[in-house]
């Protein structure tokens, strides 16, 4: 088994510019209202204030993916390097994966009717390139590769589902402002 590949996302350096989202849509020829990666400002409480923080999310390539468990035809599958991919061939467009994903990261293609999601730019990676969102990030806040799980923390943020549901492989660095709340400096 190859080492698990995952996205790493630094919320401190992200400026919410949306370049990742645009590059993703462009790279996958997505139609309006179709997204594999979404970036924007999310509201969350930091200290006593409710603040807007930039956040970018795609499929988290979970370690216990609900989409794979729900798929009746094996169209959703886990690769050797731990990524969750979708194969159009067995897909019958039933939408069970769409409803199962707590992050809302599976959608129906407006072109084919099949389920669709982030494949971490498989076509680009096969050419030795990085995923389009990573390459497009002007602040190098997004990374993709064989990062160990301790390279960041789980995305347990108030605007996201509980990570214990599907154990996302995504690791993030939370806003430093959160660190200051804890005397030992740990981000919780």
């Amino acid at each position, binding site marked *: 088994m190859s080492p698990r590949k995952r996205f790493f996302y630094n919320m401190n350096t992200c400026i919410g510019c949306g370049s990742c989202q645009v590059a993703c849509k462009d790279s996958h020829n997505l139609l309006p209202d179709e997204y594999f990666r979404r970036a924007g400002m999310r509201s969350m409480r930091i200290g006593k204030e409710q603040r807007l923080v930039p956040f970018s999310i795609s499929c988290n390539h979970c370690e216990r993916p609900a989409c794979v468990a729900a798929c009746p035809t094996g169209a959703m599958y886990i690769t050797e390097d731990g990524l969750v991919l979708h194969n159009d*061939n067995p897909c019958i467009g039933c939408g*069970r994966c769409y409803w199962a994903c707590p992050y809302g990261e599976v959608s*129906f293609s407006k*072109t084919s*009717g099949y389920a669709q999601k982030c494949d971490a730019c498989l076509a680009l990676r096969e050419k030795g390139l990085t995923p389009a969102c990573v390459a497009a990030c002007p602040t190098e806040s997004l990374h993709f590769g064989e990062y160990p799980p301790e390279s960041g923390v789980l995305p347990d943020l108030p605007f996201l589902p509980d990570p214990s549901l599907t154990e996302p492989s995504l690791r993030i660095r939370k806003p430093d402002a959160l660190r200051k709340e804890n005397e030992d400096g740990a981000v919780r």
Partner: protein
Amino acid sequence: MERCVDYLILGSGAAGHYAAEAIRERDSRGSILMLTEEGTPTYKRPMLSKSPLIRFKKDRLSVRGETWYREQRIEMLYQCRILSLDADKKHVETDTGDFYYQKCIYALGGYNFVPPFPGHELRGVLTVRRTEDLRKIKEYALGENNAVVIGGGVIGLEIALEMQRYGLQVTVLEASPRLMPRQLDPQTSEELLDCLKGIRVCTNVSIAEICGSEGRARSVLLADGRSFPCGMVAVSCGQKANIVIAQAAGLPCGRAVIVNERMETGRKDIWACGDCAELNGFNAALWTQAAAQGRVAGANAAGGGETLGEFDRSLVLNGGEMSLFALGDLASDPQKQYECRRTERTFQNFSINTKPPHAIEKRFYCNGRITGGCILGNLSGMEKMKREIAEGVKL
């Protein structure tokens, strides 16, 4: 043409395709030949009513590309009509030649039932079974504003929703007093009706005639005198198994070819699977069932000893703002006492998750155990409900 093959698969639907896959997994050398009336490799029928009509392309529906069949040395013979099967001589006669087999998989599927209304033979009266039908729907929709769908089952509603998205004003005519009477309880049928915004649904109707002019369907006339003008009529009144060849060959048949859990037909070296087979008098006519049965039939034809396991038999209808899930017995037996537990749920709508937040969940219990359930709205609770029904959890 006269040929002898190790495995002869009659039909190229889901059952035939997955039978071929299963044979190849066990037998890498035996010759496999699939005979089909169609002109393309196996495609996914469920996608016919789920693909966006506006961008429909039949090439997208294939289960596997033609290269895969070449690599696996699975030969397809297209546009080949099967005329007869001789189980004793292990011989199949077709309009393109005679074939002798060692093992035969009978997977001829079914055909859409069109009730013999006066006018059912007019142009513009369609069913949805083949890719060609979708091309016809688009062709007949040109310059038309109205369409009528006869039959308010899952396929009927799916095609009605797609036609509506395509820009047509759709009327669904259902003979039963409510929608999906076999799958849903009366209250959920009513609630489903309320959710179908923009589609006119008339239940409890009796169709008198499909009226036409110049040989083309132009309206549907009901027995009560109501008339629905339309440019086309899509008929979705269920399917019937293709058993004529099987009956003539002496295979035991009910409404479909009778099989056991190993997909054996009772005649040596013939297995049946998919929409043309019935196990314990039942056929769900589902893709998942055809695939599961095909795998078992193929594996057993290649010397295995497999029996049919569980497969997903739930109903899922995704219609934009309206979605429906149903599984199991929803108080369908009037002889039994059921208890219904209804829950209205609101899912936490995370800022990144754009699914509709509300759901109505119903669980039906009989003798203290769950027998079935359904969800209308947000179907995120579907997997949990499926597990509960599979385990038969107590009230």
